[in-house]
């Protein structure tokens, strides 16, 4: 059984089919990239997979459970327990320090543990920046804090929407190295990107166009 399975999923805004009968399955431990032009429905798909939005039609099976018709409260619990989110705009709480931002995710999930949060920052190479506010961190560092926060509760799936969109080459490299590390440890990664270089390092790339899966490319040269 796949970790994640989308069956004939559509998201309809008025006349617009932002997603149009998309079917997709992702195995546990897989690293999938999603590409496509602007407006093709990538973020819409991420929202649905991440339990932040519900599809208009179709079913979404996460761990074998259909989450497409759950109420808001259940979806909140699913996000909390199973999903790790990484955003293009980082979205750190600007009045909390790096380590506190990581602890926020722990706080909603279970019990905040500063030591564990510091270890997560260590993994992304930011142990010495733990007490800095987001405004005192570079974009790349902020994104790494965001990754540490996404990892902290050992989610089933890590969803990243344009994680390198606001980063320079060097920082992009650092983030991709962290992804590689996560993949080696068995994490499931779904990464939306415009950048072919980011897509190339994944095992498989799915290309969306006008809300449909236009094609799927398996990366022959994938280095685990």
């Amino acid at each position, binding site marked *: 059984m796949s970790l994640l399975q989308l069956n004939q999923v559509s998201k309809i805004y008025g006349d617009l089919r932002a997603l149009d009968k998309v079917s997709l399955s992702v195995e546990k431990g897989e690293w999938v990239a999603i590409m496509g032009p602007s407006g093709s429905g990538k973020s819409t798909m991420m929202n649905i997979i991440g339990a932040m939005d519900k599809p208009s039609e179709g079913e979404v099976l996460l761990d074998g459970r259909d989450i497409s018709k759950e109420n808001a409260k259940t979806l909140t619990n699913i*996000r909390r327990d199973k999903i790790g*989110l990484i955003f293009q705009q980082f*979205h750190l709480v600007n009045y*909390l320090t790096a380590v506190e931002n990581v602890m926020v995710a722990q706080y909603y999930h279970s019990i905040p543990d500063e030591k564990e949060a510091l270890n997560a920052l260590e993994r992304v190479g930011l142990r010495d920046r733990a007490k800095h506010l987001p405004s005192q961190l570079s974009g790349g560092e902020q994104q790494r804090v965001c990754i540490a926060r996404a990892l902290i509760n050992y989610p089933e799936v890590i969803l990243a929407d344009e994680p390198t969109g606001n980063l320079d080459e060097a920082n992009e490299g650092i983030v991709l190295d962290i992804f590689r590390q996560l993949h080696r440890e068995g994490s499931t990664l779904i990464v939306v990107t415009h950048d072919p270089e980011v897509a190339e390092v994944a095992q498989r790339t799915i290309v969306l166009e006008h809300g449909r899966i236009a094609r799927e490319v398996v990366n022959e040269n994938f280095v685990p």
Partner: protein
Amino acid sequence: MKRQKMYFRMVVASLIRRRSRMLVALLAIAIGATILSGLVTIYYDVPRQMGAQFRGYGANMILLPQEENSMDMAAMEAALTHIPAESVSGAAPYRYETIRVNEQPIIIAGTDLQGAVAASPYWMITGELPSASGQALIGKEVASLLGLSVGASFTASYTPAQAETSENGVTQYQTMPFEVTGVLDTGGSEEQYIFLSSQDVEALTGEEGTLDVVQLSVNGSQQELEAYADAINGAVPQLAARLVKRVTQSETTVLTKLQSLVFLVTAVVLVLTMVCVATTMMAVVTERRKEIGLRKALGASNQSIIMEFMGEGLVLGALGGLLGSVLGFGFAQLVSTRVFNSSIRFQGLLVPITILVSVAVTALACLLPVRSATDIEPALVLKGE
């Protein structure tokens, strides 16, 4: 680390690290709390303040003999035991007799001169109050009639009633010399009298005599005054206590009007504070839409979001209340010294009450903005800026 600890860490961080924003909300609450606690202080202190003012207008209770010659000093002392000592701002026993000075009939009033001045603070005296035997305070009209002024002397002659006609056809009388120490100006009938100490009147007349009237200046509401009068009338048969209605009633009317005005202003201020805090919190919520979306994306329940914003609001409410109760006392003090020329008592109980009220008002004001915060969609965070 405990969850509560993290909760407080977040609330405190939000308040401290976003202090410029929070200061606006704090200011709104503190100003509301200041005016609130100031007005409440005045509300409760006004009766005392106004009472003191009204006491300036003189006696508001008088004691009269029930029968001819029935009231003496002992009866007055008995009556005074029915009024709390600290409420009596002046008590003046009066005994009136007629004497002659240069053959002019003049009324003398024997009294406790200190008590008389205390009961009638509006008296204007040129010179001094008599402080020793043989000294007199004379009314302004008496002074011009007899051509007397401060420092002058006169001889009082008194004819006892039973000795009106003597054996040899010559009127018997007793005389006593007096020195004028002060001239009294009241604008009233007192200007026609000569005021002597009770002891001097006794010495002049050779009789102990009885009191004709006792003037009392008492602090208290109309109800309290009525209760005192009833108690005296029930317990001391020699005399009758009456309220000077004109004074007590106008006192009560003015007080009621003033208090209802203060009450109204307080209510308006409370509503304005609430609107102000609600607007500020609404702005805070709007400004933090992304953060709320993010927290929800991380799995925060609506309840957690409400708790966090309420926590911030309540801390602000408590701080604003504390600040306001301190500033409010200053405000009340200022009003009191400017308007009533007297200082106000610090009401310790008002501090916790102000804090409680401003916490409650803030909570109420936050209700709507915080509710709207829970409507924010987590999907918001994946949308571009």
